[in-house]
Structure formats: structure tokens, C-alpha cells
């Protein structure tokens, strides 16, 4: 994989407009309920511009649900607040959220089988290409121009992610790790302001994991993109994350820098066995406060008391 | 009053038939998540066989036996050869496979069965009329109304209370869990399809006996679709409730509005249910997501 240089990537990625001081993305008391299951039980944290925030926690902690909530995929079941650049975005349709500059990758890459890798990556350029179906009929010049531009970008990103040799291969028979990379490439091509990655390294062997880690590190170095990444592999987290949020049973357990969180006692306890909290939640009472005030600092500005 | 009673009896006859058809469709659906568009043909084929063999001079029980065996074989074979291979490819392909079955059966019937119309004469069925509240009603219709309905209830009882029945229901509900519980899911599914074909055969033969056996039986089979959607596509009890409901609706529409309205009313109900309550009265949410 060639991640020696990606300064050219910055051309693709929009710089977010300077926002008044305040986080780029802020989540307040996010709650989500499916049937009898409380998937999110009051998640609160901030993401500053150009952060790489890793969301970690045991299975069932609500991590993917969190990303789905931000993406706008949870229509009815969501309560609380999500603010992007100060504007409320909870309840917006996923299309509007995408238009605001959110890119997304998924745990099980939803690729279009039967199409090539290139075509799948170009799907990420849907909004940027912008022309209409009718244009494909009689404004061929416009379409060809925009397609050529998008193609250039796609090919560069394919090289950046190491998929260059598979450009015209059909996505169908490719291994899982490759499919995850294609999903990531697709999210990158739109030059998003916020990248939401759902377990990009799950199912990959250690070499592949390191490669993704390097990719993300380079992305962080070369572009202003803000990343919210759900991750299980702690070495990847240590490599790329600027901050870590630990979720358990749908609520924030700990937050802070990677070293603070990953080495904290609360986090290790949670990973090993968090039964007490699960029982508490099932009984409908909020879990006892298990947050550490790391190094005496509050977890994020403006949070209410520690009753959650 | 006459019209009311006549409609009721006709409705119950239809309802019983729809209940049987519906049970078959639901069993098939629970097995393979495929909707069987060839169900009308699965009704017509055995009915044709009985009518033809009877006309040819064979004894009734022989004709019935042959028809039943043919149905079971067609149902089981179709699952084994075709549906077993399409389960990975999505709902659409399974349904399209049933289109293929419909065409094949139509063609085979056209070639093998000499005539277009037959009558079936089942011995032991009371003839003549019976008086209900002063209205003369065909005894045969009453018998079949009662008979099909009773049979439907028997099938439900079997599914609920016997070992085999429980396996069928489990296999249809969650194949993965069932197979881990030691149930040979494929055999169960094949059995489901065979039984579905059998129920269609019974429905076709009995309805054909009350009226007549011709291509309109296929339309009848299709007319059961609103019934099972109303009841819930994966609900066994729903099939009976929906069947009776649509049977009555059709009969009353026929009497009070005229025959040309029966289809549009039934399918109008289908559309309404699809839009407002897709899982039907008794179906589960899983149906909708599939």
C-alpha cells in the first residue's frame, strides 16, 4: 500500500468553514430504544474539528447504533440532541446528513455485487457528480466531464488505499478485508467533513490492520477530516485516535486521550465483565457512575452532573 | 333473507376452500419465504386428474389416490430440485421459480388432460337441498363448507399439538435455530411443500366437486392471496381467519353487487392491507422486513 504521501488528498477534502468555538459535532443525551432494548442510554460527548475519536467498548454497547444515529438511519427511535457545527441535525434524513458532509463505512460493506471496484467507489461521488438522469440522455458533454473528474479522484484514492490493481475487478468474489477497504475508499471519495467508520479493521489480519491504521494516520495528517471510528483493535486505536470514548450498555463510561482511557481501571473492568451495569440498565435504573474524572479534568465542557 | 343465507353458505364454502389454500400457501411461505404463484395450478392439476380418471371409468378412490400422490410428488420435487437452490438468491428468484412451475404445469395439463372441463362426483356426499331458516340450500355446498373448515382446523391442531407439527412450525420460523435443535430443516421444508400441494389438491377437488373443474380454478387459487395477506403471510391461524373473511366478502359481493366486482373488491382489500397493515392481522413483523 502506498501511503507515502497524500497531500494531494487535501484537494478532495473540504475544509470546514471556521465555526465559532465549539465542537464540530456534539451529542447530548442520545437515547435509542428498539422494542424492549435500550441501545443508547444517554450518550454525551463532543467531537472537535480534526479529532479522531475512537468509540470503544464491548459488544452490544451501542457503538454501531451510535453511528447509525448520527447518519440519520434511526428515524423513530431516537431522542436527545445531535449538533453539527452548531445546527441541530437529529431527525434529518440520511440524504440530508450525507449532504452536510458525512461519509460512512459499514461493518458489513454494502457493495454493489456485479459491479467493478471502480464503479463501487464512484458511488461515493454521487452527491459531488450532481448531474441528473436526464443529463445522461442529452447532455453527454457535461456528464463525460464530471465522470472523468470523478474517475481521476477515484483512481487516486484506489491507489492510496492499495486497491489500484483491482480497479476493474468485480466486487463479487473479493475477500472481506478488501471489501472493507473498498467501502472506506467509497466514503473517502466524497471528501467528507466527518468520516464515520464502523469497525474498519474487523475481520482483517494484523498486517491489514496496520495498513488501515497507517491509512487513517496519513488521512489525519494530510486532510482536515474529522473521524469518528468504532474500533475493537486497541493498537489501531492507539495509532490513530486523538481521543477515545468508551461506551458500555449504551452510555459513556470513560472518555479522554487514548492512553488515559485504555489504561484506566474502569475501562479494563468494563471490558472484562460489565454484568452489574447490564443488570442495572435492564432494571431501568441508570448505571452507577463509573466514570473517572481523568486527571481531575471534566470529561467534556458543559456536561450536567454525574448521575448518568 | 334468502340472499343472505345463500351468500352465507356460499361464503363459507369459499371460505373453507380459501382456508385450505391459505394454509398451504402459509406453510410454503414459512418454509422458503417464497410466495407460490403456481398454487392455482397445484389446485387444478389434481382436480383435473380426478375428473378425467372418473370419466374414463376408474374408481373414485383410485382417482383420488393418484391425484393425491401426484400432488405430493410435485410439491416435494419442486422444493427439492428448485427451491432448495434458490434460497440463497433472494425472494425474487424463488417467486420467479414458481412462475416457471405455473407455466410447466399449465403446459403439462394442456397436453395430458384431454378436455377443458370436468365434473367430479364424490360418493357419499349428500345431494339435494337442505332447509335453513326456510331457505333451500345445496346440501353439497354445506358439506364442503363444513368439511373444508373442519379439515383446516384439524391441520392447525396437528401443527400445534403433534411432534411433527411442532417441527414444521419451528423449521418455518427460524431455520437456523431449528437445525441446531436437531431438526432436519430441509426435510421439514420439503414436507411443508408436499403438504401445501396436498392442501391445494383437496381444495381444488372439493371446490371442483361443488362447482366444476376448469381453468377458473386457477383464478380461485389466486383469489386466496388477499386472504392470506389479510391473515398474515406467516400466520397459520391467520390463513383460516383470512380465508373465511375473504370467502364471505366474495360471496356477498357476488350476491349484492354482481360477479364482476368480486375480484376488484378482494384485490382492493389486498392493496389496502399491504399499505396499511402489511403484516396482516396475525402475521409477525419479520414478514415485512423480508
Amino acid at each position, binding site marked *: 500500500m502506498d501511503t507515502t504521501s497524500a497531500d494531494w488528498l487535501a484537494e478532495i477534502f473540504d475544509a470546514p468553514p471556521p465555526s465559532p468555538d465549539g465542537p464540530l459535532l456534539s451529542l447530548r443525551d442520545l437515547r435509542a430504544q428498539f422494542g424492549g432494548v435500550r441501545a443508547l442510554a444517554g450518550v454525551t460527548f463532543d467531537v472537535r474539528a480534526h479529532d479522531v475519536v475512537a468509540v470503544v467498548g464491548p459488544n452490544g454497547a451501542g457503538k454501531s447504533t451510535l453511528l447509525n444515529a448520527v447518519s440519520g438511519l434511526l428515524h423513530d427511535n431516537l431522542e436527545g440532541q445531535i449538533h453539527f457545527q452548531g445546527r441541530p441535525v437529529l431527525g434529518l434524513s440520511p440524504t440530508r446528513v450525507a449532504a452536510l458532509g458525512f461519509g460512512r463505512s459499514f461493518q458489513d460493506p*454494502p457493495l454493489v455485487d456485479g459491479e467493478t471496484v471502480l464503479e463501487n467507489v464512484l458511488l461515493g461521488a454521487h452527491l459531488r457528480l450532481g448531474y441528473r438522469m436526464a443529463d445522461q440522455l442529452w447532455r453527454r458533454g457535461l456528464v463525460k466531464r464530471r465522470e472523468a473528474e470523478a474517475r481521476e479522484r477515484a483512481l487516486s484514492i484506489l491507489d492510496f488505499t492499495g486497491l489500484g490493481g483491482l480497479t476493474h475487478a468485480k466486487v463479487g468474489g473479493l475477500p472481506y478485508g478488501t471489501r472493507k477497504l473498498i467501502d472506506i475508499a467509497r466514503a473517502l471519495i466524497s471528501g467528507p467533513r466527518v468520516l464515520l467508520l464502523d469497525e474498519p479493521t474487523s475481520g482483517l489480519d494484523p498486517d491489514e490492520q496496520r495498513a488501515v491504521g497507517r491509512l487513517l494516520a496519513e488521512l489525519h495528517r494530510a486532510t482536515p477530516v474529522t473521524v469518528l471510528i468504532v474500533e475493537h483493535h486497541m493498537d489501531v486505536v492507539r495509532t490513530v485516535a486523538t481521543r477515545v470514548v468508551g461506551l458500555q450498555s449504551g452510555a459513556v463510561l470513560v472518555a479522554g486521550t487514548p492512553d488515559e482511557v485504555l489504561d484506566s481501571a474502569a475501562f479494563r473492568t468494563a471490558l472484562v465483565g460489565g454484568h452489574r451495569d447490564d443488570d442495572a440498565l435492564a432494571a431501568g435504573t441508570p448505571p452507577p457512575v463509573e466514570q473517572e474524572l481523568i486527571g481531575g479534568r471534566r470529561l467534556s465542557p458543559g456536561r450536567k452532573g454525574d448521575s448518568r | 333473507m334468502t340472499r343472505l343465507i345463500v351468500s352465507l353458505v356460499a361464503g363459507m364454502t369459499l371460505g373453507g376452500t380459501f382456508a385450505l389454500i391459505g394454509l398451504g400457501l402459509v406453510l410454503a411461505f414459512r418454509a422458503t419465504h417464497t410466495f407460490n404463484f403456481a398454487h392455482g395450478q397445484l389446485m387444478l392439476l389434481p382436480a383435473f386428474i380426478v375428473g378425467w380418471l372418473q370419466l374414463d371409468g376408474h374408481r373414485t378412490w383410485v382417482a383420488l389416490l393418484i391425484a393425491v400422490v401426484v400432488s405430493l410428488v410435485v410439491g416435494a420435487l419442486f422444493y427439492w430440485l428448485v427451491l432448495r437452490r434458490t434460497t440463497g438468491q433472494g425472494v425474487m428468484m424463488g417467486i420467479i421459480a414458481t412462475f416457471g412451475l405455473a407455466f410447466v404445469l399449465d403446459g403439462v395439463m394442456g397436453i395430458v388432460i384431454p378436455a377443458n372441463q370436468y365434473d367430479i362426483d364424490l360418493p357419499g356426499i349428500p345431494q339435494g337441498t337442505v332447509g335453513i331458516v326456510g331457505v333451500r340450500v345445496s346440501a353439497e355446498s354445506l358439506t364442503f363448507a363444513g368439511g373444508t373448515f373442519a379439515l383446516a382446523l384439524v391441520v392447525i391442531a396437528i401443527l400445534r399439538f403433534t411432534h411433527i407439527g411442532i417441527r414444521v412450525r419451528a423449521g418455518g420460523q427460524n431455520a437456523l435455530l431449528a437445525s441446531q435443535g436437531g431438526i432436519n430443516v430441509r426435510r421439514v421444508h420439503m414436507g411443508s411443500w408436499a403438504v401445501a400441494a396436498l392442501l391445494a389438491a383437496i381444495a381444488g377437488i372439493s371446490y371442483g366437486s361443488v362447482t366444476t373443474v376448469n381453468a377458473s380454478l386457477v383464478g380461485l387459487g389466486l383469489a386466496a392471496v388477499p386472504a392470506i395477506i389479510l391473515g398474515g403471510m406467516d400466520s397459520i391461524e391467520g390463513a383460516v381467519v383470512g380465508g373465511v373473511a375473504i370467502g364471505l366478502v366474495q360471496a356477498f359481493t357476488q350476491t349484492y353487487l354482481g360477479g364482476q366486482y368480486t375480484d376488484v373488491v378482494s384485490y382492493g382489500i389486498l392493496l389496502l392491507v399491504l399499505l396499511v397493515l402489511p403484516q396482516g392481522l396475525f402475521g409477525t413483523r419479520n414478514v415485512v422486513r423480508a
Partner: protein
Amino acid sequence: MTSTSTRPTRTTTPGPAGALPALGRIRPAWWGVAVLALVTLVVTNTASSYNVFVYDSILLAVMGAVALQVLQGTTGQFSVGNAAFLLIGAFSAVFVQREGLPFPVDLVVATVVAGIAGLIVGIPALRLRGLFLVLATFAAHFIATFLGNLYQGHHPEYAATGFFIPVLFADHPDGGGTAWSWLLFAIVALLILGATRIVRERSGRALRMIRQHEHIAPTLGIKVGRYKLLIFTLSSMVIGFQGALLAHLNGSVQVANFTLILAFQYVLMIVIGGLDSIPGAVIGAAVVIALPIAVPHILTGLHADSVDPTLSANFSLIIYGVAVILFVTASPDGIMGLLRALGRRVVRLPGIRDAYARAVAGTRG
């Protein structure tokens, strides 16, 4: 890691310029149209008037097959509504003709009416998927049939036999076959080119994403509802247009001709030809329409005596059914899938492989 500002070098290199790459840049659709023109030329000049009629029927069916292909094969909206929209188009044409309006006007009206009907069906259908969508179009079929019967019943003198409208081009010396063939060729050519253009690039990708991952598509900015409605309406308009033309080709329109089996046949066409393939739709239409014609010849070839027409009709049904089942279980990409697999085998042969690789390198960037 060294840091530069230049993009990484491309891993694929451009190939030599020349005649072969230039030919390769002509889109396959145009080749298809050229072949079709050639076939039309041959048929209109050499075939019997009956066979020309068969050819015209094939061209007509291609319209419905292509419409269904884009709707179902590409966008994944499973529909058995073809017969219903054909009926709507045909009856609209009849209605307009009976009002005294001349030929092209009824085509326009039929298309518009069918489009409106498509919208009426499409809007509530937006929230239905898979099986439920099929059932909704299934219900729509019966409702359309009912309306047709209502209209036909209104005119008791035609209730039994259906309506008659003048057959187009009937006054031509050859009975109109040549004129029909070229008219239909022009229409089908435009349709093929148009359809090919919309199922690729941005729209095509969006449609395919809708087909395979409809709930994820919005996160890419794809407006799913709009695309579905657009495709539904467009395909209904094409099928309605086909219905009006059908009325003019046959001269007679009656509800009994628009059966559910007819709708199933269009599904057969796209499955046999190959899903999500415009040439597949054309091939499928040709196979399904021509089969009942070809079967008697095959049968008489096997047995000396002449064959009862209903026997061959039934044989065709069996062949359709078996073909569909075979394609669904063994080769889900239909005839086009088989051809492509064959093509890949051929390309692997040594001499061809190098030439092909050179040609491919020259046309790709």
C-alpha cells in the same frame, strides 16, 4: 515516509492508439442498433408477411421488456404490472380514437395516461419491498382489468368481441409489414439507446444500490424515493405507449387479451435474457415471442405429421417454465450470463488473449 505533493503514479498504463481501440470506444448499444437495423432490412425484404408480423410482435415486446428490465432488473422493483399498463395504454388509444382524434394523438394520450397510472401505483408502492411490491402490482393488475371490463361493458355491442380500431398502414401494398417494422425499429432503437444511457454512470449506480441495499443508499446521498418513482413512471409510460401501438397493430382490443400470464411472460423475458442487461431484455423478448412459433417447426421436424397448434402452445409453456427454472437455479444471469461466460472462455485461448489485452489496455484509462 517521504512527503511530496504529487499524486501517486497510476498503476494502469495507457495503451497504443489505433483503429481497434477507436472501434472499441463505440458503445455496444450502437452496435446493437446497427445489428437490429440490418435484421430489419433482411426481414422486411425476405420474410413472409406472417414472419414479418412475428418480427413486429418481437419489436413491440422488446419495448415492454426493456421497460421492465430497468424497473426490475436494474432497480430491483419486482412488478407483474406489464399487462395492466398495456391494457391502460391500449384502451386509452381506443378511447381517443373513438372520440375521433387521429393517429399520433392517441399514442401521446395513452403514454400520458399510463404514466399517471404509474404514479398512482408508484407512490404508495414506495414503501413496499420485494414480495409486497409484487403483490401490490398483482392487485393493480386486477383493478386495471376491472376498469377495462367496465369500459368494455359500457358498450354492449363490443362487450363480447372487444373494440376495433383501424390497423395502421393496412392500406400499404404489402399489408403494412414493412412500414411497421421500420417504425418499430426506430422506436426500439431510441428506447435501447435511452435505456442504456440511464442505467449507467451516476443514475445507474444509484439504481443498482437501491436494488441491493435500499436502506443504506440514502447515506450516499441517493434520493431513493425519487428514483423509484421516476423509474416506475417512465416504465409505465413506455408500456402504455407499447399498448397503444399494440392496439394499432392488431386492430382489436379486448380485456381478455391482457392476462396475468402475459405479465408473467415479461418477467420471463428478462430472466431468460439476463437481469439488469438491456441486450438481455431484447434477447429474452425475442426468445419468448418466437418460441411458440418455432416449436411447431421443431416438432414437425421430429415427427413427420403436422402438429396441433394447441399442442405446440402447451409445449412452449413447458419450455418457458423449464427454461426459467433452469436459469434461476443454474445461471441466474440468463442468456447474457452464458454468453459472457463463453466469451471469457474464448478470450482465454492463447492467441486471442494477447490481442484482447492490448485492445483493452488501449480503451481503458
